[in-house]
Every structure is written in C-alpha cells, then in structure tokens.
C-alpha cells in the first residue's frame, strides 16, 4: 500500500505544480524538409507568384513607356479631349505641342459599359432565377451549357455579328427610343445618325456580359439556404414571394459583385466595340448618336496609324484602362467572395 500512496501523492503533486505554474512551453514540431522538397516548394512558390509578377510588370512597363506622355500632359491626360500628335522638323514626336487627352474616351467607356450593365443585369438576374427556381432539371442543364458556351465565344464574333445583324435592329430600337423618349436628355439627337452609337455598343457589350453575370448570380442563387426557402413556401409564399423574401436578400451582394465583374469585362472589351462604335474625340452624352469613345478600341484604332512615339501615349492610355479594370475587378471579387461565404 505505502508505495502506491506515495506514487499517488507524487502524481497529485505533479499535477498541482503543472496547474500552478505556467503551462510548459509548446514544443515546436520541426521537420527539416529534404532537399527535393525544398526545391519543389521554392519552384512552386515562385511559379505561384507569377500572377503577382506579371501584374507588377504590366504596371511598371506601361508606366515606364507612358511616363513621358503622362508627365508632359499632366492632368490634361485625363481631362482633355484632344488627341494630336505634333511632329517636329526631324519627324519625331514633339511632346510639347502634342495634345493627348482621353477624357472623351474615358467617358465614352463609362457610357458604353453603363448601358451594358443597365441592359444586361436585369436580364441576367432573371435568367439566373429562371435557371435556379423555375426551369425543370433537363432544361436547366441544357441552358447552363448554352450560357457557358456564350461566354466562350470570341469577341470578334460578337463584333462582326453585331455590325451586320444586330445593328439594323438596334437602330430600329434607337429610333423608337428617340421618337417616344426624345425628351429625355440622353436620348436627344443633334443629327440623325443612328449607326454605330454608344447605345449599339452598349447592347453588344450587354450581350457579351450576360453569360458572366448570369453564371455568377446563378451560382449565388443556388446557395440560398434551402431551409429558408422552405420556410417561405410553408408560410404560403408564391415563388415570387419566396424570391423577394429569401433568395434576393441573400444574393443581393453577389449580384452587385457579378454586375461589377461584368462592368470590368465591358470596360476592357476591344474588338467588339471597335466594330460597332464610331470613335469621335468629343464628349458625347447622347447615347443614340453615332459618336462615342472607348479607350480600348481607341488604342486599337490609333495603333494602326501611330508612330512609335505616339504608341507610348497609347500605352499611357492602356495604363489608365489597366488600373481602372483592376480596381473594378478587385472590388467585384471581394464582394462576390464575401457574399458566397457569409451566410446572410
């Protein structure tokens, strides 16, 4: 007996000291990775950093090449609307007398993509609702494939289809809008030129971003908690009632995010807009008039006729476009991620 008691006492003593004093320091578990693993990890990590490196390089090189333009133009690069490449006697660019301003293009880009968002978001959200809450299973699968396919179509296809097929119909709609809503300032016309207007470019962009906005909002709608959906139905809600009370509040943030992703895509779209938009160096708020602006398309347009020095000005414009789309996309991704994670 005694030895047992002693042992028991000892144990209690020990546990007491443990309780009283600080906890023992955590042992650090270290594994010394083998050489092959260290090489593997460093290779993978450096590969993984490629996106950071590429984005950084894009910024640095566009800034480097565009710096002279930005420096000589100053704030006028963003606020001015003239694009004149003046040459000096030796035939190279005379920066002092040249004017590079992208305000008209910047505003034009915003106008076109805003029209695209206004048209595409309601259609996309409703389509996403159809796919999630209305379509029978088979139709749903088929339609989801079709929408994904639409996202895979190249932009030149949209552009040329837009020019030959969509434009006549869009002009018809534009004329109707002008006829019945001409009193709204945006729909005023100074000259009866309906072809190649920001409105038509906006429609093409809308068609191009419908698949993006649809598939992201569909994804978010599909995460609507089923128990809340059932609770709404059990209270005698119609499908519309359920959508208003449960699905829409749940998905609201994600829809905003997906719309912004669409906006980012619309802002950077080049070829499709180029084919259907008449690029004019003039700020134009009249969306039905065939004169608009778009940074990406302007770069493509000017590139063909620009000398190497003027191209540097285009790179400055590209830098503005890059930064703008990066900001819009980053915000959009943050919003989408927050919605699909947080359960609200």
């Amino acid at each position, binding site marked *: 007996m005694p030895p047992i008691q002693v042992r028991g006492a000892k144990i209690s003593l020990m546990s007491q000291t443990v309780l009283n004093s600080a906890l023992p320091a955590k042992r650090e578990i270290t594994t010394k*990775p083998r050489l*092959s*693993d260290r090489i593997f*990890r460093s290779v*993978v*990590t450096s*590969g*993984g*950093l*490629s*996106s950071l490196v590429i*984005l950084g*390089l*894009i910024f640095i*090189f566009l800034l*480097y*090449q565009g710096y002279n333009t930005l420096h000589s133009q100053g704030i006028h690069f963003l606020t001015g609307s003239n694009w004149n490449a003046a040459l000096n006697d030796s035939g190279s660019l005379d920066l002092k007398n040249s004017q590079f301003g992208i305000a008209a293009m910047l505003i034009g880009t915003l106008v076109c993509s805003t029209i695209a968002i206004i048209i595409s978001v309601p*259609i*996309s959200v*409703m*389509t996403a*609702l*159809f*796919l999630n809450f*209305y*379509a029978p299973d088979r139709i749903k699968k088929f*339609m989801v494939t079709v*929408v*994904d*396919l*639409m996202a*895979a*179509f*190249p*932009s*030149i*296809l949209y552009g*040329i*289809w837009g*020019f*030959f*097929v*969509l434009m006549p119909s869009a002009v018809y*709609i534009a004329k109707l809008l002008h006829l019945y809503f001409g009193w709204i300032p945006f729909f005023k016309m100074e000259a009866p030129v309906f072809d190649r207007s920001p409105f038509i470019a906006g429609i093409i962009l809308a068609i191009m971003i419908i698949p993006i906005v649809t598939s992201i909002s569909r994804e978010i709608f599909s995460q609507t908690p089923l128990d809340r959906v059932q609770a709404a139905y059990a209270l005698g809600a*119609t499908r*519309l009632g359920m959508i208003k009370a449960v699905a829409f509040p749940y998905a609201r943030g994600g829809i905003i995010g997906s719309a912004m992703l669409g906006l980012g895509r619309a802002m*950077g779209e*080049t*070829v499709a807009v180029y*084919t259907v938009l008449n690029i004019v160096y003039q700020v134009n708020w009249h969306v039905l008039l065939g004169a608009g602006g778009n940074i*990406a398309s302007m770069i493509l347009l000017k590139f063909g006729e620009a000398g190497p020095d003027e191209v540097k000005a285009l*790179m400055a414009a*590209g830098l503005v*476009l*890059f930064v703008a789309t*990066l900001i*819009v*996309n*980053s915000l959009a*991704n943050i919003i989408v991620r927050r919605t699909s994670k947080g359960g609200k």
Partner: protein
Amino acid sequence: MTTTVSTPSSIIPEPRRPWLATPRQRAEVFAVIFIAAIIDISLVAITPLKGKLAYLGLFLIIYPALDYLVVRAQRGKSAGSDALFRALVNFSMAIALLPIVSILWTVWSRGHKGLHWNLFTQDMHSASVTDPVLTHGGLIHAVIGSILIVVAALVVAVPLGLLTAIYLTEIQGKFTRPIKFLVQSMSGVPSIVAGLFILAAIVYPVTKTFNGFEGSLALAILMIPTIARTAEEVLLLIPHDLRETGLALGGTQWRTVQKIILPAARSGLVTAMILGVARVAGETAPIVLLTGGGDTTNWNLFNGPMGTLPFYIWKGFGAGTDESFQRAWTGILVLLVVVLVLFALARFLGGRRNSK
C-alpha cells in the same frame, strides 16, 4: 392493426403528381398565348410599329399583362404578380438565348457559302481582296499560325498556371489568399492591355519587329488565370486522404504531387488546358497589335509576320469588299467550329470526371 381501410393495402396505387399542370390548365396557358398573339398581330396592323422586332417587342409586353389579368381574376392578386413575374423570367431566358441562336444561324448561313477545299490548302499571298472566294486563296496560313501561336502560349502558360494551382492547393503558404485574389484580378485584364504590355516590354525595347511568339506571350497572360483557376478547382476535388497516404508512405511532397496528385487529376488538368485554349483561340486585339498578320504561310514563330484566324477575319472585315466579307464569315465559321469542338471536349472530359 385491425383495419377497415377502404383501399386494401396489398394494392399499390399508381404514383401521381397532382401538382403538375392538368391538361385543362395547359390549355388555358395556350389560350392566353394565342389571344396575346392575336392582339399582338392586330396592334402591329393598326399602329405605325412594323417589322419582326415590333411583333416581338409588343408580345413581350402583351403576354405578361394578359397573363397577369387572367390569373389575377382567377386566383387573386399575389398569384397574379407571381404569374407576371414567371412570364418575365421566362422571357429573360428567351432574350438571353436570342443572340446565341442568331449568331449560330448567321455564322452558318453566311459562312458556309465560302467553304471549299482550297481553304485548307492555300494561303492568301496571291489572292487579293476582290478575287472570287471559291477559287482564290485560303486560310491554311491562318490555321497554321493560330495553332503555332496557341501551342507556344500553352507552353508558356501551362507551367505557370499549373504551378500557381499547385501552390494554392498543395503548399498553402502565407501568400495563398493574396495570390488567389491576384489570379482572379488577372483574369479581368483586358486583352488589349496584355498586348500593349508585350509591346512595351519586349517589342520596343528588345526585338523591334513583330513575330508570332510575341502574340503567344500576350495570349499566355490571358490564359494563365483560366488554367490556374480550373486546375485549382480540379486539384481541390482530389480527396485529402490521397495526399496523406502519399506522405504517410514516406514519400516527399514532391513525389506525392508528381506520382499521386497530378496523375489523379490528369483529365481535369487537360480540361483546364482546353479551356485555356478556348479562351484565347479567338482573341483578336493582342494578335492585331503584335503578330504582324502575314498572308503567307510562316512556320517560324520567331521571325516574320504570322497570320492567324482572328487576324484573317479582322482583315477580311476591314477590307470591306463583298469577297473579303465572305472570307471573314467563312473564317468565323472555322473559328466557331474550333471553339465549339474545344468546348465540347472540355465538357466531355469534365463530365467524365464528375461522374467518376
């Protein structure tokens, strides 16, 4: 349990779905559509609105309104709004489908007229924009150029995209979250910016000429995020046990990834590459900026201008003659077939993976 239940329990009745629409309810729906169509046609007849668009647009307004009124009269206000919303939702799907149907139809109906065997045996070096399409010139140079450029882009993008995906799933270091974010942001880089970047970083300072590989580099920038994100999804699907098994067997992480993870994800990784190719195959803006776009077959990625399908289409559209438009449409048809095949392939492989 002593029972006097009316149906003997041995007889199993037919399963029913009483919540589905009855024939009578279906007939009512068709009646509403029919009446809406009649109103539609008569409105077009008596108002100045004319044309296919007028029929369509008016129907999009008349049908939901009529449906709302009918259902509301039958079953009350909230059922009415529900029916109205259902009609709008259905129409939205139809409107979203309209462009794709129109695109497929237009591309086929305009493009197939220019199909002939010369397309795949000749290039454009001796054909002018006014030469007849069916006898002069082809797009073999564009097909060869596109393949070379896209393959070179793959060679650049696959290692980087794959390493990014492996980093995100296998290493999970402190950069995981920022890199995930950057990859997402990178997928939003406009294609023209990628082209300008290669122009700024390589063409002007280094090479001073245009060639196919510069186009490949720009396409690779656009491809990396697609490949990285798809590959990441695929790798995440691989059960965690497999990784632990590899490590528990005494394998290094490198051997585990090489021998277990990557083979297990093989078909998914192929899907990622296909989606990457589909993403850039029709990309036009950087190609126009960088490749020079020749009319002659050029097998050398690093020397001389190189024609591609997008450039062929671009040029045909820009030249503005009937023949060149025809060439552009036929080029679009070929490009569209390529994209459709890639898409179907990715679906097929992806579907097979999911069903496993």
